[in-house]
């Protein structure tokens, strides 16, 4: 039974991981904090919904269109909101993305109303037994897709020239420029990938929690996950998210269920008191 709770916690955790990953990627490359990550996700969900429910497209093309849109939205955010303010202090960019988040929520409410909508899933909603553990196939699907996306990203950043160049840019923009790397294009690509991740998260979670304009609030859990794992660390974002998801599901198993929303942040505070850099965060060392 506990194992089962952990498994469904892992599925929720995958969503937090994706949110945290999107935040961490942008932070690592430009030290910008994108508060609109969750609402970019929400908008992509509504795009899929529009094509599938309202325009009667088949499911798979609707989802693919939404993913494509999420990439475009990432690029648009970078080009229209972030790049013009690239020389401004990072805090200004944070406020700009906060503003974008509010605009996106209002716009979505205007276009699609503030109701909740059921959202289709690619995976059959069944429960399968594996020994004594019963697992929901939707949860399995969430974990599978997340794992695939992360594997894809790992291979991209580790083994392709463009991916390596993006890591180089995040370590020294000056040296990257001297190598002939197009740093602006690298930033744009980071936002595109973050957009794709946010879109994927929307399509995975919307069937479970329903589609609504408040969906973007999941970014808060994404922040918690990223900080828990170690702010700015990519593996930290992944494991922080999964850890947070498990905690959130296991806590009500032992304590009154209202504790569900408190426990993750309580643990976050405890972790940060013991290890201020988060589980996998590095100390900031000054290079001599």
């Amino acid at each position, binding site marked *: 039974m506990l194992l089962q709770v952990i498994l469904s916690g892992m599925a929720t955790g995958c969503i937090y991981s994706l949110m945290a990953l999107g935040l961490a990627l942008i932070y690592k490359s430009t030290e910008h904090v994108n508060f609109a990550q969750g609402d970019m996700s929400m908008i992509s969900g509504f795009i899929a919904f529009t094509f599938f429910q309202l325009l009667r497209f088949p499911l798979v093309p609707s989802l693919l269109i939404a993913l494509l849109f999420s990439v475009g939205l990432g690029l648009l955010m970078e080009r229209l909101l972030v790049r013009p303010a690239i020389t401004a202090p990072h805090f200004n960019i944070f406020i700009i993305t906060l503003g974008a988040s509010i605009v996106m929520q209002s716009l979505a409410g205007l276009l699609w109303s503030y109701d909740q909508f059921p959202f289709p899933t690619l995976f059959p909603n069944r429960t399968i037994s594996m020994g004594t553990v019963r697992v929901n196939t939707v949860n399995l699907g969430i974990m599978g897709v997340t794992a695939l996306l992360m594997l894809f990203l790992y291979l991209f950043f580790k083994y392709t*020239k463009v991916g*390596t*160049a993006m*890591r*180089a840019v995040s*370590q*020294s923009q*000056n*040296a*990257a*420029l*001297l*190598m*002939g*790397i*197009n740093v602006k294009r690298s930033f744009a690509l980071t936002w595109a990938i973050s957009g794709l991740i946010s879109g994927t998260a929307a399509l995975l979670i919307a069937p479970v929690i329903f589609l609504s304009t408040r969906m973007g609030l999941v970014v808060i859990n994404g922040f918690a996950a990223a900080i828990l794992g170690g702010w700015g660390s990519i593996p930290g974002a992944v494991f922080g998210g999964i850890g947070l998801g498990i905690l959130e599901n296991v806590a009500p198993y032992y304590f009154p269920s209202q504790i569900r929303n408190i426990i993750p942040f309580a643990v976050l505070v405890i972790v940060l008191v013991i290890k201020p850099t988060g589980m996998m965060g590095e100390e900031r060392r000054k*290079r001599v």
Partner: protein
Amino acid sequence: MLELDRVETFYGKVRALRGISLKVREREIVTLLGANGGGKTTTLRTISGLLHPARGAIRFFGESIEKAPPDQIVKRGISHVPEGRDLFPDLTVDENLAMGAYTKKDRGDIERSLKRVMDAFPVLGGRRKQHAGTLSGGEQQMLAIGRALMSNPRLILLDEPSLGLAPLLVQEIFKIIREIHQEGTTILLVEQNANMALQIARYGYVLETGKVVLEDEARQLSENRYVKETYLGAGKRGEKVHASPGHP
């Protein structure tokens, strides 16, 4: 090969270069001397396109390059080894070198450059999967030079290659600079160690507060009384003039 004609570069409102003119001919080593803040690093950054001059011209093989972005400069054959090495610390040695060849498309060319770098720096051969940040200071400088060689440049800009290295390593680095030069690469060298720089350079410029105050054959410069007293530390004992700020 390279010619700067009355180049003026600003950092914000500060005029860091106040009309620098200099020439580098093919296959020679030219050195820029001078105290910190004199404009040596700014000169190199202006040549490599990180900064653009407000006035003046930079010509490379007769073509104007003062408005070109850094990637165009690299493609034309100018490679810059920046001050403080500026490696990618969390990338491996191999990945750092691969980034050096970022503008190169031809795999054969890249392989040949890699072989050349590995021959020049055998010590890097055993560390290819290691993160650059874990290398020693000397190894890091070798990697920084190796990374610049990966684009197979015709001109290398070297900014303080001996900075922070033990005397033995300084000798080693200068030996390598000589070898690179002998293989046919032109070098523009910025150095605090004026002694060493004037030994290997053919021609030198002395920069102070953004202007060329003195230029001559390296041999003549090392005999020059002002250079001797100011940069070669050959003044009377106790009267040494220190170049770095913060010292009396």
